């Protein structure tokens, strides 16, 4: 241990870290040291650190550290250490995530070992919190105290989390893997339908005895293209939970996609081979497994996980209770199965809690309960086993530490991922919009719609769970006149109930600054036109997407920058919005953009399938065509060709990809076919074929892009070459500008791509002159070219543009 610890209390806790964990921490420290001394390459260290929960932020030089809290269960001692760590190594805030764990932001990597040791001293690990491994195992926070659960899933969640943590067969996935337990079928808390593995507690009579087991779901997931889970087993006996999960891990390792990251989640594997074949593979692997005593050992100790109250049951004296308390009680408190006890949610704005509040909350909890505290998926904290008679005192204690907000899981409890605040993938400010909406929804005028949910993701990847919200948003952009404005795609009508039983539909995008006004319009529409007791999802389905779009249209106009520049600033930002923070991100942006567009193509197909289900055959075909166009545009982006209209895309695509035999011609013909076809005449069979053919086209586009990436990886990168100078063929310097490119008005990353493509045709030492715009282009293009190893010989500002001379490197 390399820490200098003079604090006796902390020293004794650190000394209690089990030797195998201490060794793991030492290894992390050694690897960090080697990386900082340039002894191991960055990509190797990146994968290593991810597996230890250390994630790069969009800001250079600082890290996000995510820790694992299985099923969200924390003790008061852990809460205090979590608070201390946030104060000493991060920015003083613990952020509760939608996976019931905690993230710290702005941590220096050199502080990571100390942070990890402090956490390990109270039994918390960061191991496998990020990376292509089993992420934090979640479970309903009410498990064991809820009147509706078949049985308490807590010990099972704990056992599976421990079993798969560091398990050699869960270390080599092509993509991350998520597990969530639910205690019942109908409620929202477990969200089993949107997980790779989603066991739902079930009881079955076997030989006259009630036996515990699980309705066992697999292959669900949100992400850009959401998939509902499939039933692997209607009833999986409890003793099979761990071995079957191990077998699934094997199948996913062996058969899951590896090259195309976007297709690598297990949901794609199951969609590809079908649930029956998947089941066959799992059973085949299950047969081969050697017996492991851990599979069933924990079943002998299920009672160890049973909680008990600190105080005897009691009832609340209902006389003269203050209004604020009653409001909080109505929204935040639920009775438990056991008479005289309640569970109360502590609402955290955007999932954030300060170190002082976290410590103070621990002290409050100690007064009323044992360590019966859970972090929740909606980013709050649930305190269980409160004796009901203590409720007012408990509330007053929360009030004293400013944690008395009401409205947990209601409309004001807006859920958001970190978005552009810290995440590298963030497109627009999800937390900024969430803060604005939250403030608005706290007003009593929204009480009539308080049962609705609003969830926001900063990008299509759905960390903010926008697919299962009544009103969901995910980050997007729109360019106009050389400026970029943050936008949000609107997704309506998702349902959390029934373990996330259905996903919402994208209905179009709005400028971020218009989102609050749009929400108000939508809520007014709902208030005016919803039938009595009609759920929002049913309402949206009944009035139809077209009506929603008509209401949206008023809000989706983007003014010119000169007319109203406020649209070009994200929430809480005094800087004009740009797609990427920092500089030199063109190459990264290109990859993001192409992947983003291919993902959009997938989504168009997904939506086509939804329309097919509703017998809307013309709309089905139109959506499949949109999907193919988006996929073609994605590939054209790699050639520096910006998308224009359908006909131009088709012509450019034919020239660049079909005639060059990069894209298989029979599949390419589907694109032309559906451009020319009279889609209004399609019947059910024709629409079905349209989906299948468009899927082949889009899949081929993914493959082509995958091949391009592999080829790019095989090409030696000039900047990385370290050949001895004597051995290198001397470059013949030709001080001549051999070509020029006018890239005025060409946006990032197309300006960079076109420069790059042109330079590939030049000889070493030749000079290329390019003219690019001020702003994002001059910030990004030279830096990206330098990253590629090219030499920027000269940069001159000419009017509102820049002229660059670039020398082709070896």
């Amino acid at each position, binding site marked *: 241990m390399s820490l200098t610890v003079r604090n006796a209390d902390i020293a004794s806790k650190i000394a209690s870290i089990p030797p195998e964990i201490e060794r793991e921490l030492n290894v992390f420290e050694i690897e960090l040291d080697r990386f900082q001394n340039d002894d191991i390459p960055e990509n190797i260290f990146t994968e290593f650190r991810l597996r230890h929960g250390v994630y790069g932020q969009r800001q250079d030089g600082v890290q996000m550290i995510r820790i694992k809290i299985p099923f969200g269960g924390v003790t008061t001692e852990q809460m205090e250490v979590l608070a201390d760590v946030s104060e000493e190594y991060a920015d003083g805030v613990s952020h509760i995530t939608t996976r019931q764990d905690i993230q710290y932001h702005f941590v220096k990597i050199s502080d990571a070992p100390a942070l990890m040791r402090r956490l390990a001293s109270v039994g918390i690990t960061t191991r496998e919190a990020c990376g292509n491994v089993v992420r934090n195992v979640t479970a309903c926070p009410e498990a064991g105290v809820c009147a509706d659960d078949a049985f308490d899933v807590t010990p099972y969640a704990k056992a599976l989390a421990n079993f798969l943590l560091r398990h050699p067969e869960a270390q080599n996935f092509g993509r991350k893997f998520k597990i969530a337990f639910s205690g019942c079928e109908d409620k929202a808390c477990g969200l089993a339908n949107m997980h790779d593995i989603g066991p739902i507690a079930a009881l079955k009579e076997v030989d006259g005895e009630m036996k515990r087991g699980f309705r066992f779901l697999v292959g669900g997931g949100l992400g850009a293209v959401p998939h509902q889970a499939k039933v692997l087993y209607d009833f999986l006996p409890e003793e099979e939970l761990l071995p079957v999960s191990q077998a699934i891990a094997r199948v996913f390792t062996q058969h899951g996609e590896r090259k195309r990251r976007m297709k690598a989640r297990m949901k794609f594997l199951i969609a590809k081979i079908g649930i029956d074949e998947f089941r066959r593979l799992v059973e085949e692997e299950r047969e081969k497994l050697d017996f492991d005593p851990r599979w069933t050992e924990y079943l002998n100790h299920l009672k160890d996980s049973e909680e008990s109250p600190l105080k005897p049951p009691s009832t609340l004296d209902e006389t003269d209770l203050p209004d604020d308390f009653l409001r909080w009680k109505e929204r935040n408190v639920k009775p438990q199965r056991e008479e005289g006890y309640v569970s109360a949610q502590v609402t955290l704005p955007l999932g*954030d809690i300060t170190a002082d509040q976290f410590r103070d909350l621990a002290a409050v909890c100690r007064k009323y309960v044992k360590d019966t505290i859970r972090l929740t998926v909606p980013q709050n904290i649930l305190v269980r086993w409160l004796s009901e008679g203590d409720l007012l005192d408990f509330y007053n204690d929360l009030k004293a530490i400013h944690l008395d907000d009401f409205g947990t899981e209601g409309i004001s409890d807006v859920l958001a991922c970190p978005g552009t605040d810290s995440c590298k993938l963030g497109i627009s400010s999800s937390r900024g919009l969430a803060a604005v909406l939250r403030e608005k929804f706290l007003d009593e005028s929204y009480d009539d719609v308080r049962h609705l949910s609003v969830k926001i993701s900063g990008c299509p990847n759905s960390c903010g769970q926008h697919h299962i919200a009544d009103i969901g948003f995910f980050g997007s952009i729109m360019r106009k006149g050389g400026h970029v404005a943050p936008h949000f795609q609107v997704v309506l009508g998702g349902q959390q109930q029934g373990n996330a039983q259905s996903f919402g539909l994208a209905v179009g995008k709005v400028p971020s600054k218009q989102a609050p006004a749009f929400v108000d319009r939508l809520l007014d529409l709902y208030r005016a036109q919803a039938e009595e007791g009609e759920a929002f999802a049913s309402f949206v389905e009944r009035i139809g997407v077209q009506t929603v779009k008509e209401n949206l249209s008023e809000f989706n106009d983007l003014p010119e920058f000169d007319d109203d520049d406020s649209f070009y600033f994200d929430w809480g930002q005094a800087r004009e919005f740009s797609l990427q923070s920092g500089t030199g991100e063109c190459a990264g942006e290109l990859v993001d953009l192409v992947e983003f567009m291919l993902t959009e193509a997938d989504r168009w197909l997904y939506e086509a399938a939804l329309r097919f289900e509703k017998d809307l055959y013309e709309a089905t075909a139109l959506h499949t065509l949109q999907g193919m166009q988006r996929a073609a545009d994605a590939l054209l982006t790699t050639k520096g060709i910006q998308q224009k209209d359908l006909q131009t895309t088709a012509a450019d695509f034919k020239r660049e990809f079909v005639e060059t035999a990069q894209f298989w011609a029979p599949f390419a013909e589907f694109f032309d076919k559906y451009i020319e076809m009279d889609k209004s005449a399609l019947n059910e069979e024709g629409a079905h074929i349209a989906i299948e053919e468009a899927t082949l086209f889009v899949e081929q586009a993914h493959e082509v892009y995958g091949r391009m990436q592999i080829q790019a990886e095989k090409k030696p990168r000039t900047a990385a070459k370290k050949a001895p100078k004597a051995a290198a063929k001397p470059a013949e310097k030709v001080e001549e500008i051999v070509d020029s490119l006018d890239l005025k008005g060409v946006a990032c990353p197309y300006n960079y791509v076109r420069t790059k493509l042109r330079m590939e045709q030049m000889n070493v030492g030749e000079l290329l002159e390019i003219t690019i715009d001020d702003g994002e282009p001059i910030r990004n293009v030279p830096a990206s070219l330098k990253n590629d190893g090219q030499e920027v010989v000269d940069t001159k500002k000419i009017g509102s543009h820049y002229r660059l001379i670039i020398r082709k490197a070896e």
Partner: protein
Amino acid sequence: MNNDTLSLDRIDLKLFLDDSVEVDWEGCVQVFTHWLKADPDEEEWLDIADYTHMPQGPGVLVIGPEKHVSIDDRRGELGVLYSRREPFSGTNIERLQQLVSETARFACLLEEADVGVKVKTDRLEFVVNDRLGFPNDAETAAALEADLRAALASAGELSFERDEDPGQRLNLIAHPAEPLTAADWADGVPE
């Protein structure tokens, strides 16, 4: 602190605000954004973190690799908080002196920006942001107090108070007998 003690690597100083003036949070974001865009050779910053949605939270921070500066509202006491993340050079006494002048310098910049920041310097809250090396006990606090008295010797008579909760970080609030302005402290410890 004595030579055999640890270096004060992570130290914070909070200068409390005159709460009769209302902080303009949006204005603070604009000021921090201006700093962010300024010449990185002069001052390196990474980003701004906005926690104004949290009651009694960290407010708005501008985050750099070596330091965080914020308008902080924790415990409901507004102040300019300077949090040192990379060690200053020199002895512990010199480090404390640099902490004071740096914090005061940023406080002055915020005062000049007309964003509702008016610093009172009748209380200076020093925190050692390192529970491992510096437990919040009487002995360590006495050593810190000695260093602070030496660092701030020219500022006149000082009295100290401390939150003695052992769960808190080592802390001392210094009360100068003669309150000085942020500008007085900004050019270094006053002579």
